[in-house]
């Protein structure tokens, strides 16, 4: 857990280095689909140690996982608003909020909640995000004007296709999950071990 925390923290520091941040933010799709998820992953890695140190906090505020997933979803949806990408680039405090909110308000609650919620609820969450990604993809591809002042129209279209391909990947995962029954292939003990 300690190692994971260190890796997560180092990843966060690495992403915050000005040349790295500049490079990743210079391409719209990389900004939204690489930098932001990496920030979430950094938080996800750090979450283990935080859970160990503050068990009471998570028990009290996130005992069934739903509040955590809700917080995660709000933060993710918030950062999909085109205007916020502009503000992150121009307003320092918003940029700072990005580096705090994505790891600590999305990554940490995601890890805590993902272990607590039922598999069917996980599928609901993934389905919601795929619908949202299809909608965002459609918006970014078809909108005739720049949605962000900082990025050209072509970058916006690219991001739209990025959303669509991610949505397709999630749908493939959902189909695989529906069609393939793990108990056909795995011993119940393996399944319960994984669940635990």
């Amino acid at each position, binding site marked *: 857990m300690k190692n994971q925390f260190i890796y997560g923290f180092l990843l966060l520091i690495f992403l915050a280095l000005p040349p790295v941040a500049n490079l990743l933010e210079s391409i719209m*799709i990389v900004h939204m*689909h690489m930098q932001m998820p990496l920030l979430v992953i950094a938080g996800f890695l750090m979450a283990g140690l935080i859970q160990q140190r503050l068990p009471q906090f998570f028990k009290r505020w996130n005992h069934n996982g739903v509040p955590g997933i809700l917080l995660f979803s709000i933060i993710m949806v918030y950062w999909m608003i085109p205007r916020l990408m502009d503000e992150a680039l121009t307003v320092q405090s918003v940029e700072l909020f990005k580096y705090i909110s994505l790891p600590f308000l999305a990554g940490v609650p995601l890890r805590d909640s993902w272990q607590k919620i039922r598999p069917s609820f996980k599928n609901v969450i993934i389905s919601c995000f795929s619908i949202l990604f299809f909608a965002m993809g459609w918006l970014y591809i078809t909108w005739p004007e720049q949605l962000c002042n900082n990025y050209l129209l072509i970058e916006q*279209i690219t991001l739209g*296709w990025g959303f669509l*391909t991610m949505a397709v990947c999630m749908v*493939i*995962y959902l189909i*695989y999950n529906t069609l393939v029954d793990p108990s056909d*292939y795995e011993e119940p003990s*393996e399944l319960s071990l994984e669940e635990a």
Partner: protein
Amino acid sequence: MGTAVNQSFKEKTNKVLGITPEDARLTKSYLFVAFAALLLGGVLGLLQGLNRAGLLELPSWLNYYQVLTAHGLLLVLVLTAFFTVGYFYAVLSHNLGGLLPKVRKMAWIGFGMKLVGFVLAVISVILNEASVMYTFYPPMAASPIFYYGLVFIVLGVWMCAFGAFIQVANWRKNNKGKHVPILSFFATGVFVLLFFGSIPVTIEVLVIIPWAHGWVETINVMVSRTLFWAFGHTLVNIWYLTAVSAWYVVVPKLIGGRRFSDTLTRVVIILLVILNIPGGFHHQIIDPGIAESVKFLHVFMSLAIGFPSLMTAYAMFSVFEKTARKRGGKGLFSWFKKLPWGDVRFLAPMIAMIAFIPGGAGGIVQSTNQLNQVVHNTMWVVGHFHLTVGTTVVLTFFGISYWLVPYLSKRVLTPAINKLGVATTLIWTAGMIFMSGAMHWVGVLGSPRRTSYTTYGDNATALSWDPYLMFLAVGGTLLMIGVLMQVYAVVHLMFFAPKGDTEFPIAEVEDHAAKTPYWTERWGVIIVIMLIVIAMGYVIPLVEMIMNAPPGSPPYKTW
């Protein structure tokens, strides 16, 4: 439960009695076609080498570019594809209790479709309608028949891939909670790559066909090239993964050792599957129309593939050292002497691995933008892939053939054929040192690839290449001798060697090996991650190429 008992009974009989005649016939047919292609492709290679050195004038009805296209198709597609599928179907049969009748039928249908495809492609090459090189991307256009042939080949490959998936899924249902045996795990990885890697090239070919017919006027060259290399580079790593399977699993058994960590082996396979397809971009590293920043990000994706290779190198040499020291090997390097150098089944893959050290280093040179500008489209590149595919992969295939063919034909490897094999390996190595070495060097001096012999009006620079091209011809001649010896050995082992039992060599893991985590079996998740990585690699450049597309290119026939 009943089927599980049956299955394990079948597995046991399979292990005791060896492969069933039906399964053996399937793999033997695949290998026969593979080595026939080696013979034909080898002859064409020699013609090319001699022509390129200025020693041989080709007749007017058979030009250099025809020979070059056929050489590439026969060796890069036929030899490798048929060997890989044949080898892995033998693996599935041996590991998983014999092929299911349905799966065997699918493999035969795949065999037929691929042969029909290759015949169609070769006919158009012979008619001089398709001298488009084995990379066949626009704006050069072949006759539509050539592309129809390619469609059949892809469909045949898919047939074999799905057959393998059915076989593995069936075994897993009957062996709940067990790990798929390691060689079948390699097979799964290879067939996953074959299927997903061939989707882009299928799209490319389906777009090319109307263009080659003249139904549409132009084609987007950049997109075609991108789709081709998404497949082309994956194919390279499919051969490589096939060779690596023998390194990890078979070679340790042959030298009397144990396998390196099972978990690491499976992680290497998974990493190669996930990281592979976007790696194709480094083939386009100096293509115009791709932003610098995208190329920069792609350097990471390309070099990421080097990481599992370094893990492999470490694992292999660790196994060698451990085994040699057990046999009494001493010193920092003198334990090397304890390895069975006189056994072709070890020697050939060992030289293959050693060749991958300069081969891999050359690959890193080529995926570096600045260095690539020096060697791009020169003979260096040809030298590079004769080292990687022509030596690392092919020598491993040769090494495999010395136990796989007798295993299938229920014959034995005689000491005489073993000696012949050692000689073949050494001649091949010498030939490649001459040929590939000369190609690398003359490439750095600027000699272009894919060009018939010319002195450019006795230009001094072009004339300075001649001595190196002479080395190329010498190497090519040695390689032809190697081809003849190898094909003789395969035919002998298949039909004439003394009857007997040959083992399918599979090394065990160490006694106190750690348990392999079960997530390595979740191919659904691995495939979704792979698709996400592919999207990461390709969405940006493809959208750019399509949205900002130039008017496109009409078909050209440059020959």
